[in-house]
């Protein structure tokens, strides 16, 4: 095999350099790409149906498996949110629901959406599918471990779902699982429910570590020739940085889950102080509930960026491709992703301003939190500056991107309210917080996921999703979701606290009733609108228009595979060689308005392309 990867044009270009070494009008060495240093990966090809579709080692299949499992949990989370909104908007119709049910739904909705839906979807789903394709690798570097990663996730989901059926039901401790209430009676599901939750989270972390190692090492070690770090699509940068964050943050979740399990099962007192319950002093003493909060948010805040950074990366690529313009300020974008990732480990206690931790921490964490606004704002500027003087296709994919910009900026600005310690005091634990984080890490990443689905569906399935249905799906979702969360901020201003099963008739809260009804109706509609996509996918798979190769005229490698959809091994006989970044759109002098990453400089010698 070793002759094969030496035997190509670029390598020969190198030898010509050694021979003459001079530069002519067209430099014969301009196409030079460093030769490969390691032999190609041996792939294990599937021999049976089970190996091909179930216990599969192909990252693309694993990506789809992750995607479908995550979407399944997302639908469960969606149904739970409907039930919650039914109680909040129309309690007279929700007579079957007790406060216990409500808190269980709140908890499971939160945990499912953040961890099992968004994290698994972005990193497990998009990460697996796109990383090898975008960096020009045949597969992940450890395909077998990658397969185990998915199945570990699958078991974690199964354990999580099983908690709905155990005595006492799932935990109703709130997704933050704050002790001591989490493991005490008085919180629903404080028996089997919480144990299954902690076990499921631990399994998730273990499974995720297997996947995460793959994503990181594939990106660092298995890039094709010429794919320098600064030529990687921002999608890969986003997923890479998010994975690094996850590898550092998830251990904090794992240890806190283990410690809490011990507190629950063996009556240790990591998080449990002396507690008086129903007139009796329990067998705990000396533990710190705030310690758990520090551990939880040391995981929890990076977790926000584990979801956000892949979304940032993906949306950058989508905007660039569909605006037919290079991403504005690529290097700034890369450093912003890395910078936000680094800073995200120094802001966790902004979730704890009123937790009773030492109040002097407030100064530090408010400052770090507002510093993080600067690179984030730079990313927003660069997205809109990419649109500026572009040649924007207003298709479904672009609509989702525009929807992302509106919701993300909105949610980002409200983040400045909450990060600014003394402004957080009146707003924390109110609906303002709910509105903020749903806008910024619920709706905004969801917009990107949807955009990405419409964008990459032709690659994955080889067929084009229906545009008309896509636009309906977008407008109902965007307008509906915006009218759920934008007015919700104002409930928080009134002071309506979160996690209230019932408002009662506080004089200043009665005005919230009408708003709650409106929000609930919007939530029912938005949820139902997601089935437009399901319908669209089924219809397209059956009768949809066949996609041509590279229908969006994009530059990045995933569109230049040997077949569409790409087969196992991705690139046929020979791996692609990369000569440029993926953003050479609308280069003056070029024939087309895009130059693929694989195009050698000599082929576009007469254009004004900048060296990347």
């Amino acid at each position, binding site marked *: 095999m070793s002759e094969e990867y030496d035997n190509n044009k670029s390598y020969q270009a190198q030898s010509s350099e050694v021979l003459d070494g001079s530069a002519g009008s067209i430099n014969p060495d301009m196409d030079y790409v460093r030769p490969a240093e390691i032999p190609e990966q041996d792939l294990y090809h599937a021999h049976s149906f089970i190996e091909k579709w179930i216990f599969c080692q192909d990252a693309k299949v694993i990506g789809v498996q992750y995607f479908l499992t995550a979407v399944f949990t997302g639908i469960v989370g969606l149904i739970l949110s409907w039930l919650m909104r039914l109680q909040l908007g129309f309690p007279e119709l929700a007579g079957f629901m007790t406060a*216990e049910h409500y808190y269980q739904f709140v908890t499971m909705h939160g945990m499912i959406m953040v961890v099992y839906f968004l994290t698994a979807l972005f990193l497990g789903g998009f990460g697996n599918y796109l990383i090898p394709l975008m960096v020009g690798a045949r597969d992940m570097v450890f395909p077998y471990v990658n397969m185990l990663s998915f199945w570990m996730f699958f078991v974690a989901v199964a354990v999580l779902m099983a908690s709905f059926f155990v005595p006492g039901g799932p935990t109703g401790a709130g997704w933050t699982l704050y002790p001591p209430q989490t493991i*005490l009676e008085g919180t629903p599901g404080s028996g089997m429910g919480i144990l299954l939750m902690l076990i499921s989270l631990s399994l998730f972390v273990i499974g995720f570590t297997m996947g995460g190692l793959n994503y990181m090492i594939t990106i660092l070690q298995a890039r094709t020739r010429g794919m320098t770090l600064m030529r990687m699509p921002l999608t890969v940068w986003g997923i890479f940085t998010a994975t690094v964050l996850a590898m550092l943050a998830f251990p904090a979740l794992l240890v806190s889950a283990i410690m809490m399990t011990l507190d629950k099962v063996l009556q240790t007192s990591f998080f449990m102080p002396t507690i008086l319950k129903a007139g009796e002093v329990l067998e705990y003493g000396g533990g*710190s509930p705030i310690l758990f909060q520090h551990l939880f948010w040391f995981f929890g805040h990076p977790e926000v960026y584990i979801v956000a950074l892949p979304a940032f990366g993906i949306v950058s690529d989508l905007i660039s491709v569909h605006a037919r313009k290079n991403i504005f*300020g690529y290097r700034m974008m890369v450093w912003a992703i890395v910078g936000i990732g680094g800073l995200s480990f120094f802001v966790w206690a902004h979730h704890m301003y*009123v937790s*009773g931790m030492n109040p002097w921490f407030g100064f530090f964490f408010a400052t770090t939190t507002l510093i993080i606004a600067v690179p984030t704002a730079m990313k927003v500027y660069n997205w809109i500056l990419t649109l500026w003087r572009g040649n924007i296709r207003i298709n479904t994919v672009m609509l989702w991107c525009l929807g992302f910009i509106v919701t993300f*900026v909105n949610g980002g600005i409200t983040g400045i309210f909450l990060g600014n310690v003394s402004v957080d005091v*009146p707003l924390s*634990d109110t609906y303002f917080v709910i509105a903020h984080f749903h806008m910024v890490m619920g709706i905004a990443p969801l917009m990107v996921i949807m955009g990405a689905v419409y964008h990459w569906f032709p690659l994955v399935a080889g067929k084009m999703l229906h545009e008309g249905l896509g636009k309906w799906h977008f407008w109902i979702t965007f307008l509906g979701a915006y009218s759920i969360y934008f007015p919700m901020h104002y409930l928080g201003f009134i002071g309506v606290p979160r996690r209230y099963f019932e408002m009662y008739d506080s004089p200043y809260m009665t005005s919230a009733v009408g708003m709650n009804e409106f929000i609930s109706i919007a939530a029912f509609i938005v949820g139902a609108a997601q089935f437009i996509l399901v319908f669209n996918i089924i219809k397209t798979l059956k009768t949809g228009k066949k996609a041509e190769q590279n229908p969006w005229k994009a530059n990045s490698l995933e569109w230049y595979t040997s077949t569409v959809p790409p087969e196992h091994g991705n690139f046929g006989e020979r791996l692609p060689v990369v000569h440029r970044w993926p953003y050479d759109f609308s280069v003056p002098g070029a024939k087309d308005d895009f130059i693929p990453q694989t195009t050698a400089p000599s082929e576009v010698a007469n254009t004004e392309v900048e060296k*990347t």
Partner: protein
Amino acid sequence: MHAGIIFLLVIVGSVLFHIFTPWYWTDIASNWGGMDSTITLTFWVGGGVFVAVCLFMVYCVFRYSHKEDRRAEYKPEDKKLEKILTWATTLGVAALLAPGLIIWNQYVNVPKNALEVDVMAWQWGWQYRLPGADGKLGTTQVRNIADNNPFGINPDDPFGKDDIMIESDVINLENNRPVKILLRSVDVLHNWYVPQFRSKMDAVPGTVTFYWFEPNKVGEYEVLCAEYCGVGHYAMRGGVEVQDKADYEVWLSEQETFQQLSARYEKLNLDGNKLAKK
């Protein structure tokens, strides 16, 4: 084209909603007007950025929507523009952070003359304790809590004897006198929150947390638990009545001290024993 118009309407609608909303904060009844002002300032700066960014986006959608015969500009970087934007953003962020930190500094530094109020929380209710004539609260311990010692005051602590106990979920406060709320919980996290006072802090079992405010409007207010504390969280309400000095002192004189309560229980016990003997 339609897309641009709808996005424009969303932005205009957001601004109009903000101007005309009937849902907004309650009339403030404490000294924390600075928090409201910082929120207003953040609204102007942040809202301005939101509107500017979105309008620019809408402009681009109108102006640069796809035409076959046109090409986008090719300009990978603009260092100068990026520098200007970075510094402008940094400046804006600093302008918002500064008042936030100044007010936080006031929030964590309690005035010397503040009246200390012990707020004790459990699943699911509140009760309160005020210092007696000595002006100091006695120390407490969860293990001491009993029928004859509902606050768990250490019986040996001389400061505890004259503590005034309010075994009710409503407490009265004196208008225009700063109070330091000392929070404790005997079981799980809670949070004593009155929206009109703007301030809050979690009660954490195993430790005592605090915050302060100065009520400045006579009236009755509802207390909400603002930290999830189990299935009765939403029902964990209490009350505050802010009174003028004269009314407040009348109310205060009617409350029982720890000593009185202990004496009452002793008598009850004695009576009980007598009954048992008969």
